[in-house]
């Protein structure tokens, strides 16, 4: 692999843009196809299909056998709420190889001291979420318990193509949230995207256990139904 290609591959991942590396396994020759240039590539159909499935693999082409390295952007978790559960979510997400960002306009919560290993945005969701770019490789998690903060975040998430939306709160809290979102014009189908109560039912009690149950649910959504996720994309 040429160093320029490796550097470009790393740069595309850093910028959260998908790309496919085409390697002729007989000669070792390679080319990097960025998502934006995909349509112009001679293997456009094949590359688009593999990208949609998110799966690397061998393929037969008229020019010989190639290996396609599909590089989808890393999963990112955007968390509303610089709370105790979020502090536990950061190392779990990191261990799994995901990016994570914390958003909370309450400056007493959103400090680098409390979150030394994750970017923290002490801003309102309406200001920061458009900048972050909630894309289809993003999981959105609302944990503040405060509708003033969670709701605008959820509105943004439901309008985006993110693959997971979860919101903390009891069934009662969620019922009131559903009413507010319906009043804001969302349909039942939109609102059904929200996992609430959030997390897998593992009887979690401590903040770390709740973080684990949330991460388990995100992982299940990510891995269990790739076709469904692809169809929604």
């Amino acid at each position, binding site marked *: *692999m*040429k*160093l320029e290609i*490796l*550097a470009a*591959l*790393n740069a595309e*991942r850093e910028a959260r843009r998908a790309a496919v590396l085409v*390697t002729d*396994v007989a000669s*070792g020759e390679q080319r990097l196809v960025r998502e934006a240039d995909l349509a112009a590539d001679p293997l456009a159909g094949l590359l688009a299909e593999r990208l949609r499935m998110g*799966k*690397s*693999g*061998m393929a037969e082409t008229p020019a010989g056998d190639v*290996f396609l*390295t*599909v590089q989808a952007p*890393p999963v990112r978790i955007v968390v509303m709420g610089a709370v105790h559960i979020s502090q536990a979510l950061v*190392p779990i997400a*990191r*261990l799994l*190889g995901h990016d994570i960002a914390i958003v909370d306009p309450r400056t007493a919560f959103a400090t680098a001291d409390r979150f030394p290993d994750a970017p923290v945005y002490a801003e309102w969701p309406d200001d920061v979420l458009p900048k972050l770019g909630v894309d289809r490789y993003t999981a959105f998690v609302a944990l503040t318990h405060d509708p003033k903060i969670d709701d605008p975040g959820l509105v943004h998430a439901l309008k985006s193509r993110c693959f997971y939306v979860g919101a903390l709160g009891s069934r009662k809290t969620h019922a009131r949230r559903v009413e507010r979102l319906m009043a804001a014009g969302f349909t039942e189908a939109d609102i059904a995207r929200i996992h609430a109560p959030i997390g897998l039912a593992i009887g979690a009690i401590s903040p770390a256990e709740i973080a684990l149950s949330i991460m388990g649910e995100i992982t299940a959504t990510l891995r269990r139904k790739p076709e469904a996720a692809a169809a929604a994309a």
Partner: protein
Amino acid sequence: MTMLATDNDIMNKAEAWRREGKGVAIATVVETWGSAPRPVGSHLVIDNDGNFLGSVSGGCVEGAVVTEAVDVIESGAPRMLEFGVADETAWKVGLSCGGRIRVFVEKVD
């Protein structure tokens, strides 16, 4: 805290090693049959001193891949390796799970 290396770290490390002037190879799982511990697309990166990051199996064949990778760094020619239960190499460094994998090893130039 030392964290488990992710694909992110692995490919960034390959680039960093090369920019430091080291010889570097990238090994990639390109095909698997049966039960294989790491999915297609998994990477192991190796420098010319035999340092490595990532994995192409559950630790079963990494040693053999590193040895081959050092040769690839010297020769510059890519290689396709195959490990499984049926060949002699497998007897030495085989996959205990009974699967079979093909690993493409290339130099970063």
